[in-house]
């Protein structure tokens, strides 16, 4: 899967976000609407209920009032009929209630148009009743009856009754109205809640859909990522396998070279030994010959021609001498190669090295040499590393010895070793103020059997080649900075920690 397919585009992310935000806002609004509607409807219901109660109360008062007037009338009738005080008491009792009830009714229905007429009717009736009772009380029974018969009282009562009926009807209507209103409110609330519920369900549906879609997208991209990861791992495994293969190839090639160098130098020694040996025999025989010739020819008095003398005294010894110096040099070179190849096969054993102590040891080992030429050697701050002790000692011994060897004429050499950490490597500098190395020779000095500058010191030119080979084996490098007649700095980089398979 190509990388572009695994990405969720920026646009799609924001779109989903917007939809969800809208949904949340809509949901909140709907909730708010429900709450507001509920509050409103509840408030209205409250009012309706209060009104209803009010109307009920008014109706009760109306009934009570009519009842009171009727009771007064009944009391009056009874008194007129029997003149007994119980009936008088009943009438009195009923009459005392009326003003209060009237007052209450007027409080309850202040705007009712029938109320004043009802008050009038009742007042008239009560007045009639009061008059008849007074008449009866004072013994004027006939007058009382005559008053009743005028029907004034009856008319007033009828009027009162009619009005009461009207009031009653109106009150009942009002009560029904309030009830109806209350019911409507409740129904409205239910409708609102139902509508809101439907909307919310819709909203939930929409949001869950979009969430599902985005989850699906996420899991897709997750799968794509996993697939890409697997591919990456497979690729990395292949790479590692390839690297391991190459390393194995290189290692075996290197081993072959080492074996080759060893065998070659070993097999070169055998004939070399013969050359050296028989040159020695040659020299020995020549000397014997010369001694005989000198002794006997002189005694015999024979003149030895110049060229014969030259042959025995100059040519033979000179030839032998040249052969001997050349073979000696060959011997040294082969020894060096043998040692290099043997070094290359030695197993590196990493250990923690206190570089300050190690370098101190190197300097001590060249103390006599240094003192002889007045050299000053010093070690600055150096980091400790983990590496092969023998190899590291060889590297720095070689560099220090070189610095001591290649001094500038007339100037005692100052050699300083310093080091610091550079990431995964430790960087050491061996700085001297010796004769320096020319630009064109900078790389040459690292070649096997090559040297640079005035050849006035002993040496085969094997040191720096060996040093570089050693460092390469340990995963390090060596570089040289130099200026003629000023001095040189050799920069050694070593891994801070040499692993066991540093080969």
């Amino acid at each position, binding site marked *: 899967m190509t990388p572009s397919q695994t990405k969720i585009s920026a646009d799609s992310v924001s779109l989903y976000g917007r939809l969800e935000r809208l949904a949340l806002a809509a949901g909140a609004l709907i909730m708010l609407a429900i709450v507001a509607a509920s509050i409103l409807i509840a408030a209205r219901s409250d009012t309706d209920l209060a009104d209803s109660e009010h109307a009920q109360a008014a109706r009760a008062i109306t009934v009570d009032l009519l009842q009171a007037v009727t009771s007064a009338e009944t009391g009056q009738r009874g008194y007129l009929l029997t003149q007994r005080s119980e009936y008088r008491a009943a009438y009195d009792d009923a009459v005392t209630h009326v003003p209060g009830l009237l007052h209450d009714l007027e409080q309850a229905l202040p705007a009712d148009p029938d109320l004043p007429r009802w008050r009038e009717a009742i007042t008239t009736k009560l007045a009639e009743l009061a008059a008849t009772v007074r008449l009866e009380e004072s013994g004027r029974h006939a007058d009382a009856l005559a008053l009743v018969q005028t029907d004034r009282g009856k008319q007033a009562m009828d009027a009162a009754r009619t009005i009461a009926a009207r009031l009653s009807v109106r009150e009942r209507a009002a009560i029904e109205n309030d009830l109806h209103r209350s019911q409507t409110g409740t129904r409205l609330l239910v409708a609102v809640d139902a509508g809101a519920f439907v909307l919310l369900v819709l909203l939930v549906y929409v949001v869950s859909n979009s969430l599902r879609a985005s989850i699906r997208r996420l899991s897709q991209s997750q799968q794509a990522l996993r697939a890409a990861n697997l591919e990456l791992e497979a690729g990395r495994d292949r790479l590692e396998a390839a690297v391991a293969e190459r390393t194995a190839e290189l290692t075996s090639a290197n081993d072959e070279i080492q074996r080759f160098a060893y065998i070659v130098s070993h097999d070169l*020694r*055998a004939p070399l*030994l*013969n050359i*050296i*040996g*028989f040159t*020695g*025999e040659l020299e020995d025989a020549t000397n014997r010959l010369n001694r005989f010739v000198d002794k006997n020819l002189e005694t015999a008095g024979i003149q030895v021609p110049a060229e014969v003398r030259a042959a025995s005294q100059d040519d033979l010894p000179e030839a032998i001498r040249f052969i001997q110096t050349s073979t000696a040099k060959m011997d040294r070179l082969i020894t060096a190669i043998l040692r290099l190849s043997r070094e290359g096969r030695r197993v590196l054993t990493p250990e923690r090295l206190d570089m300050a102590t190690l370098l101190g040891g190197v300097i001590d080992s060249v103390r006599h040499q240094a003192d002889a030429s007045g050299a000053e050697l010093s070690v600055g701050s150096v980091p400790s590393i983990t590496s092969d002790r023998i190899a590291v000692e060889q590297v720095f011994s070689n560099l220090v010895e070189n610095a001591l060897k290649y001094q500038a004429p007339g100037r005692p050499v100052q050699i300083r070793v310093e080091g610091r950490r550079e990431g995964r490597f430790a960087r050491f500098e061996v700085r001297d103020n010796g004769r320096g190395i020319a630009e064109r020779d900078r790389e040459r000095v690292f070649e096997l059997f090559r040297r640079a500058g005035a050849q006035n010191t002993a040496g085969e030119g094997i040191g720096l080649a060996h040093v570089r080979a050693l460092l390469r084996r340990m995963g390090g490098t060596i570089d040289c900075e130099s200026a003629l007649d000023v001095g040189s700095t050799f920069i050694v980089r070593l891994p801070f920690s040499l692993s066991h398979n540093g080969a």
Partner: protein
Amino acid sequence: MNVVPVTIVLIEDDPGHARLIEKNVRRAGVANDIQHLADGTTALEHLFGRGEAIKSDPILVLLDLNLPDMSGIDILGRIKADPLLRRTPVIVLTTTDDKLEIQRCYDLGCNVYITKPVEYEGFASAIRQLGLFLTVMQVPELA
């Protein structure tokens, strides 16, 4: 050396080395016959094809291990396994100083193992010292 003359059998493939060994041994005062055999096959033929002659001629073997046609170890093994020849002093004189090789030679019964120095001075000196050693050695009769 003892009364019966001992022949020194030198098994060495390089003729130059053989000659130098001979010269330096002589310089140490050894006057015995030195017989030079240049390869393993010839050596085996000479040693094990002699039959009765062995009874009269005690020998001392100077053995180089790097022979062209076989390893000197095989010759050492055969000498020390043979009921007649196993008393023969065998001095291994070879270039290798490998510890395992040295152990193997002594395990097979070699009497002395000498590593030839690879440079001539040491070589000549070592051979001369070997020669001096030979002059004081007692070589057993075989039969």
